[in-house]
């Protein structure tokens, strides 16, 4: 019987079994950033240990970087301290650091792929739950805690329980105006925020076959929002084409050998999965979250659910809590909710293709009065190419602020924050209470084009109508 990619990669990286039954798993690529690594380096120093495989560790700075302040020292001394700590730790341990002066700095999950560090058939770990993003390349990529960052630095391994695999087949063509972001919001709505606990998600089907790498990354990125620590797509020609010629991709004869090996990691046709879910792409609508978990989403034409709609008491409690926090009335349309802030960026939707797609439509439109709209490229590389293409000018002309690379208002560890109970249309990945920096701030997750539609109309809108898609509501 055949094996899944997950099993093949797991087996190739399993070092040995530990006393408690867990596996000691080799982590091929370790990505680190300024928030979850300093304590790990501290623990290493306390025990007089060194970084075991420094050539397999790569660092960048993303969470705390201001996007409107280039010169150091930053106005926030805590942020300045964190970037300096990372510089020191990388220098002392011979770790490659994509610092702000390299032209390569950015959100860790955007930097890894664009540098060609993220490769099929590998294991990748990072102290950030959105590490699942790298699964788009057919890697098994885990978000880990800081003690595990320490473990990887010291041993290049972590102790882990093997996961089950759920295959999620999405077949067919997405309607115009429906994007990869809508696919993952739809999946999480369907399977729940804890539906993926104990599973790796294998995303497959013709929709994924036709997706670009950037679209695959958007979906894999939010696997954790569905409770799955790992999400991946089998590598194919799209994957290899994306990687060819990137700075860290294999070169010359090594390239051909690598591609052959990468292909061998794909799931076998006759492998069995622990669970299989089938989804029809044509049924997916532009999706917007109305609540305080990424699973609380509805199609743009739908109404926000009522408390009474929920089947169990605990779900009724959750809906009531979400409605109260969001200041929404159950049963009212999602469309038309007035927004204060619009954010396009993050490791979910801060890639070049996101900015290109939105720029095609916002040209000739203006951000509505009273709305603050910010655009944050995911990396310095993305920013540079976008600026070479003149995208920055299109956004600025339309009334958006064009910023420097970073995580920004996804989690608001830098100065970009909601104020009071502002409502934000956001292309990021989490709508938790207080997520965007204000304890009462409210977040609605949606695709970048839906964020742009909200920005120019000042309210949650159907991007297909706002931007004149021929087959709106088809």
């Amino acid at each position, binding site marked *: 019987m055949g094996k899944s990619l997950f099993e093949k990669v797991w087996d*190739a990286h*399993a*070092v*040995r079994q*530990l*006393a*408690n*039954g*867990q596996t*000691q798993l*080799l982590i*091929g690529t370790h990505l680190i950033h300024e928030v*979850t690594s*300093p*304590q790990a380096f501290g623990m290493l120093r306390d025990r007089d*240990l060194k970084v*075991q*495989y420094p050539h*397999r560790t790569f660092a960048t700075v993303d*969470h705390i970087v201001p996007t409107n302040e280039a010169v150091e020292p930053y106005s*926030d001394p805590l942020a300045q*301290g*964190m970037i300096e*700590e990372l510089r020191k730790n990388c220098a002392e341990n011979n770790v490659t650091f994509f610092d702000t002066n390299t032209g390569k700095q950015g959100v860790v999950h955007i930097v890894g792929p664009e540098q060609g560090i993220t490769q099929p058939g*590998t294991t990748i770990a990072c*102290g950030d*739950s959105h590490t699942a993003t790298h699964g788009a390349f057919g890697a098994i990529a885990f*978000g*880990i*805690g*800081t*003690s*595990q960052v320490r*473990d990887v630095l*010291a*041993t290049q*391994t972590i102790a*882990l329980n093997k996961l089950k695999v759920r295959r999620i087949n999405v077949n067919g063509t997405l309607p115009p105006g429906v994007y990869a972001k809508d696919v993952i919001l739809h999946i999480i709505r369907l399977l729940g*925020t*804890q539906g993926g*606990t*104990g599973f790796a998600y294998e995303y497959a089907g013709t929709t994924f076959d036709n997706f670009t790498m950037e679209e695959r990354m958007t979906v894999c990125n939010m696997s*954790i929002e569905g*409770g799955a*620590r790992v999400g991946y797509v089998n590598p194919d020609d799209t994957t290899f084409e994306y990687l060819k010629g990137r700075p860290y991709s294999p070169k010359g004869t090594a390239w051909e*050998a*690598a591609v052959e090996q990468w292909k061998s990691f794909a799931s076998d046709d006759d492998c069995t999965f622990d669970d299989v879910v089938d989804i029809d792409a044509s049924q997916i609508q532009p999706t917007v979250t109305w609540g*305080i*978990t990424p699973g609380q989403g509805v199609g743009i034409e739908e109404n926000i659910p009522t408390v009474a709609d929920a089947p169990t008491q*605990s779900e009724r*409690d*959750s809906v009531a*809590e979400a409605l109260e926090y969001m200041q929404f009335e159950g049963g009212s349309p999602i469309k038309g909710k007035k927004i204060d802030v619009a954010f396009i960026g993050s490791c979910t939707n801060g890639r070049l293709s996101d900015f290109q797609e939105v720029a095609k439509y916002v040209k000739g439109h203006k951000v509505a009065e009273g709305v603050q709209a910010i655009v944050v490229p995911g990396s310095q590389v993305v920013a540079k190419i976008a600026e070479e293409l003149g995208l920055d000018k299109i956004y600025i002309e339309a009334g958006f602020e064009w910023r420097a690379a970073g995580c920004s208002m996804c989690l*608001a560890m830098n100065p970009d924050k909601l104020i009071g109970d502002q409502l934000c249309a956001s292309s990021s990945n*989490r709508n*938790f*209470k*207080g*997520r965007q920096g204000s*304890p009462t701030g409210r977040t609605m997750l949606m695709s970048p084009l839906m964020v742009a539609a909200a920005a120019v109309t000042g309210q949650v809108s159907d991007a297909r109508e706002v931007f004149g898609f021929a087959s709106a509501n088809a």
Partner: protein
Amino acid sequence: MPATPIKQVTGKGVFVPGDDIDTDRIIPARFMKCITFDGLGDYLFYDVRKTESGEDKKHNLNDPRFAGASILVSGNNFGCGSSREHAPQSILRAGYSAVIAGSFAEIFFGNSTNLGVVCVIASDADRASIAQAIEANPEIELTIDIEDHKIWFGDQSVPCDIKPGARDSLLSGNYDPLDELLEGAGDVAKTAGALPYMQA
């Protein structure tokens, strides 16, 4: 060096209701601007406990009746969201040694176990009974018996569940895996040697 085995956890409890309590709620991101975990206990559930001007809100975690509690009782999918170890670190540093929930998000569960913070699963009905007992008598002592899969409160007990690997680790005192991982260095080199991309 194994730590002291953890077979039981005993202490006062406090009920923090709600499902999907995410790590942003356990410790908001703005308090992660730090390079050590020291002092994170002060920010546990900060936005749930405090107003924007820093005054206490009405909340069980601020209620003097539950002062000194060391076991948190909560809902389903506790610890979802970010992989930040800051969350279990803030729980530990605020004086808690265990969480009883309906279920746990995976990364949070792993992070907590590595720190020796005991995470056990109990049913909705059983957690409601525990919460009721705490409310009726905040001084009541809870005991989580990991060996016996039981939670005692007063003279009542309910069953609880914990992943077998985590249970073994806690009972043997080997919940921090670093020493065992270091012992595998020779095998690690062998596994790495067979993977072309691992070569320098």
